């Protein structure tokens, strides 16, 4: 598995396709957090929301890195196609964790906030929840499920806009709760539950993606 993740990471770095989503993430962070003086949980709404979009974009990029023929070779070398998909998900998680780390620290340096451990934990949970939601969406919009790039883009845009804007759990209620002025300590457990739901969603999405990938082969 590590060898597959390493191969996918090398392909991602050489392709430079990580740059656009990573830059978008940094631009959003810089635009909405510099000199911000609101609550710590409130500012993490921005980084979490941005990670939802960028997590989706990165996941689609990672899964689509290999041309179908090249993916067949990789699957042949790995022995099973699910190992290759698991490596793609693993790499997406790895990259999102790095971005979440940046999103956690950057607002502290660029704005003026009262830093509390509860605020940091809430922010980390929310960012990871959005990252896993983004991975779930990205997998469903990848080439393995949606063959045509235009349909993939429309589906991805629809889902990443719907998740934070439409009042369906877990993302919308989570971000709304963080926007309030309440103490961050009260949010730690509910957002941990949201994170768990998002992890389960990403696993379910991986299973669905694998089903379609095998079916399309």
């Amino acid at each position, binding site marked *: 598995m590590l*060898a597959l993740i390493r191969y996918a990471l090398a392909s991602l770095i050489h392709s430079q396709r990580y740059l656009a989503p990573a830059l978008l993430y940094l631009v959003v962070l810089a635009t909405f957090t510099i000199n911000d003086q609101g609550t710590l949980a409130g500012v993490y709404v921005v980084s979490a929301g941005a990670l939802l979009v960028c997590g989706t974009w990165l996941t689609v990029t990672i899964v689509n890195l290999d041309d179908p023929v090249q993916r067949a070779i990789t699957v042949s070398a790995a022995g099973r196609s699910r190992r290759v998909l698991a490596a793609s998900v693993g790499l997406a998680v790895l990259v999102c964790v790095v971005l979440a780390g940046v999103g956690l620290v950057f607002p502290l340096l660029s704005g003026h906030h009262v830093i509390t451990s509860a605020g940091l934990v809430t922010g980390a949970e929310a960012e990871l929840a959005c990252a896993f939601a983004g991975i779930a969406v990205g997998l469903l919009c990848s080439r393995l499920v949606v063959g045509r790039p235009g349909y993939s883009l429309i589906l991805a845009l629809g889902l990443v806009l719907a998740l934070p804007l439409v009042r369906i759990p877990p993302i919308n209620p989570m971000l709304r709760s963080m926007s309030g002025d309440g103490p961050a300590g009260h949010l730690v457990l509910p957002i941990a539950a949201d994170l768990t739901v998002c992890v389960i969603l990403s696993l379910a999405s991986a299973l669905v993606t694998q089903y379609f990938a095998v079916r399309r082969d």
Partner: protein
Amino acid sequence: MGVIRLESVSKRYGPNRWVLTGVSLEVPAAESVAITGTNGAGKSTLLRILAGLSRPTRGTVSGRPPVVGYVPDRFPPGDRLSATEYLTHLGRVRGLRGATARVRATELLDRLELAGGARAPIRGLSKGNAQKVALAQALMIAPQLLVLDEPWSGLDAAAHGVLGEIISEVVDAGGSVVFTDHRESVIGAHAAHRYTIQAGRVTAVAGGGTIPRELVGWPVDADRTASRQQPADGPPGGQDGTALPSACVVLFAPRRARPREVDWSGLPGVVDLTPVAGGVRIRVTAHACDALLLRALRAGWSVAEVRRDAAGCEARDGGAACSR
């Protein structure tokens, strides 16, 4: 390794597009099978099913070994990794250590004479050189099943020979090889069995390859047994005691080349062998002579002499040679 068996395999793409219908075939261990058919007949789909990359809509595949090497008909040029980096990564994926994978990658690329640079991005390589990389990735560890989709396409003449050697080596090691090609000469030279696809149905072509199995060096147990039953100091004989025709072959190692070691005594039909200066003299039954010569040439040996009968071999050697 056992027989890879496809039983009543059908494959459908979309709601109603059947590419294969009721395909049943066997790929024996230590043998090579050719699949022929027109463009779009379903050869690549069949190979993908054999390699485990595609599931049949109906039917079963059994006996597929764990280590499968797959070479597609085209190697996508999108990879910005260099050939060595790519092969090293795939070697790691196949369980090799990084350093071992790098050494193996270099060996294979040297053997296939990759032009354009092992460190240059794959996308910059020509079609033939990219095909060499595709071939190399399938050989990072010895495959028990090697699946080749029109592998000669785009390869230069030297690589054609190397690919032939590779097929022989996989077969000699007990592995199976399945390939597609359109040329009779290629199929005849490399396949023991042949199937053809027409309208999604596969039929065995009578006679398989157009040349005997021995020609490509398969270990034919019956032949080996027969040759070992022969007295070491007598002429090769049939079961009824009559002498089979034999030939005397003298091989030598070219000065600037290093031919690979071959277990001559283990080859089918070999009766006696005698080391001579810079080479070896082998007495072999006539029906296995071509196979031995082909095997020798593929291993890098040069043929100095071929005489029709063993008597000539012994006479030339003063009657004392040709003892194993």
